[in-house]
């Protein structure tokens, strides 16, 4: 049943050049960033450190178990690209009117939604997998000895990263199903993500603003600590925030739930 929906949906992307270009750009970007970020940061620090009275500590991002926190935090910045792919391919079904055709041919409206949920789930899974592989390779290259206990310590950042992506993509899913146009949807999501929520969040007290969706998503994984920050006495949270993760889960249900309630009643 689910397999059938997966197969139908898969056929829609697998021969699409646009899909492969977008997904390889996104994944390529992630991998390049993961593999070069340490060198990049250290070159900045070294530059700045040449004039400093005390030696600046360099970054070491890739050792187990810190690599999971570092990479998942970094990867979170690129989730907008993933949401873009989600929105392009959902709104395509409306601009090509193929959603109509799918339903006419005997796909129920909820099956159609499920096929898109699986699409999002798989995209997030692929991104998480690439992150996991990159982290494993980088960690093994950097850590002096490979210990399974260290490898699995803080591995919870991996599912947390998946949740962050999935929550954001569910938001994209809701916007795409509501607006049905790719340009409008991408515009609205970007506006909300970069401008609207940050301004609202700035005006609200922290104990309220932390329940805003984007805020909650980014709070699940806090800024990683570094030797540099420690020097200034700044300490960030080094574990996954469960309350924020729960807020994210609630948002997932909410965003997806709204679509499941509204979509089956609409004219296509």
């Amino acid at each position: 049943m689910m397999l059938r929906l997966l197969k139908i949906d898969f056929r829609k992307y697998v021969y699409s050049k646009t899909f492969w270009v977008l997904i390889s750009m996104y994944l390529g970007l992630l991998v390049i960033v993961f593999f070069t970020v340490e060198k990049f940061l250290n070159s900045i620090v070294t530059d700045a450190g040449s004039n400093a009275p005390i030696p600046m500590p360099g970054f070491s991002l890739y050792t187990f178990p810190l690599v999971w926190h570092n990479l998942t935090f970094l990867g979170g910045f690129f989730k907008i690209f993933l949401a873009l792919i989600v929105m392009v391919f959902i709104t395509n079904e409306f601009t090509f009117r193929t959603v109509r055709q799918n339903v006419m041919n005997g796909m129920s409206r909820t099956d159609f939604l499920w096929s898109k949920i699986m699409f999002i789930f798989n995209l997030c899974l692929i991104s998480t997998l690439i992150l996991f592989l990159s982290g494993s390779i980088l960690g093994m290259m950097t850590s002096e000895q490979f210990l399974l206990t260290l490898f699995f310590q803080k591995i919870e950042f991996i599912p947390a990263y998946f949740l962050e992506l999935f929550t954001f993509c569910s938001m994209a899913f809701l916007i795409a199903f509501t607006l049905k146009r790719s340009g409008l949807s991408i515009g609205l999501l970007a506006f909300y993500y970069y401008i609207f929520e940050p301004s609202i969040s700035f005006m609200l007290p922290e104990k309220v603003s932390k329940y805003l969706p984007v805020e909650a998503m980014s709070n699940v994984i806090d800024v990683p600590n570094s030797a540099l920050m420690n020097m200034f006495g700044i300490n960030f949270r080094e574990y996954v925030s469960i309350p924020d993760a729960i807020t994210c889960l609630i948002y997932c249900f909410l965003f997806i739930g709204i679509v499941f309630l509204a979509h089956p009643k609409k004219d296509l």
Partner: protein
Amino acid sequence: MESPVLEINNLSKAYGGLKALDQFSLKIPKGEICGILGPNGSGKTTTLGILLDIIKSDSGEYYWFGQHPSDILRRRIGALLEAPIFYPYLSGVRNLKIIADIKDCGYDQIDHLLDLVGLTSRKNSKYKTFSLGMKQRLAIASALMGDPEVLILDEPTNGLDPKGIAEIRELILDIGKKGVTILLASHLLDEVQKVCTHVVILDKGKKLGDGKVSQVLNDSPSVELAADNLDQLRSSLEEISWFSEIREEDGMLIAHLKQEIAPGELNKFLVDQGIYLNHLAMRKQSLEKYFFNLLSGNDA
């Protein structure tokens, strides 16, 4: 008793203040080829859209095969609505495979269907490179996927050249002969007349009439006759069994013929009866005229 393939009860749909469909009811038994005839904007596509669950009705209900509509039942229906719709970046074959997956019917039919609609040579070209006629042909192939028991066709010959139109009509008739129930919407009287056994006439969302094509769109040839004494003429005509119906209109008699006869023969018969005609003309009732009469009657 076998339940009708399709039963529609008092279906209504409004867009804003505009009534697109108003208390529409219809019953289609198995094997019937039913035409929905109406001008553009009369509610044909709205009706078919509701029957395929892509448009939600405001009130009324419909049953497929005597059951409440569902996606599983829709897989037994082949449909072509308005313009053909496919994924533009996929080839003809790949588009049909998606439909086969949705209908759960396997890919073995695809080659045969593409051959049937004459697209075999272009089956691996992307849909967006197709001409309008080819798109329409692919849509017809997709409607035939999975051996549907019912075929819903909305303006199926749209965009085709005369040769294509003739081919598609031929194809529809062939499919109808196999016992497939067909619901065909068209604004072309000629198309409905050539293909359908039954017809429903729709205008501004209202059903104006329905029945057998031969009754509703009566096209049996008739004769106009006039003589000094119409009553005598009438009783003479009623004596012979050449006519199915005789009526008076504008001071002359209109007699519908059961079969073709030569006017001379009729004239000779009447002269033998001592009746001299002052007007005799054969006429073929124009369906177009009937159709427009019906529509303008609704306007008044």
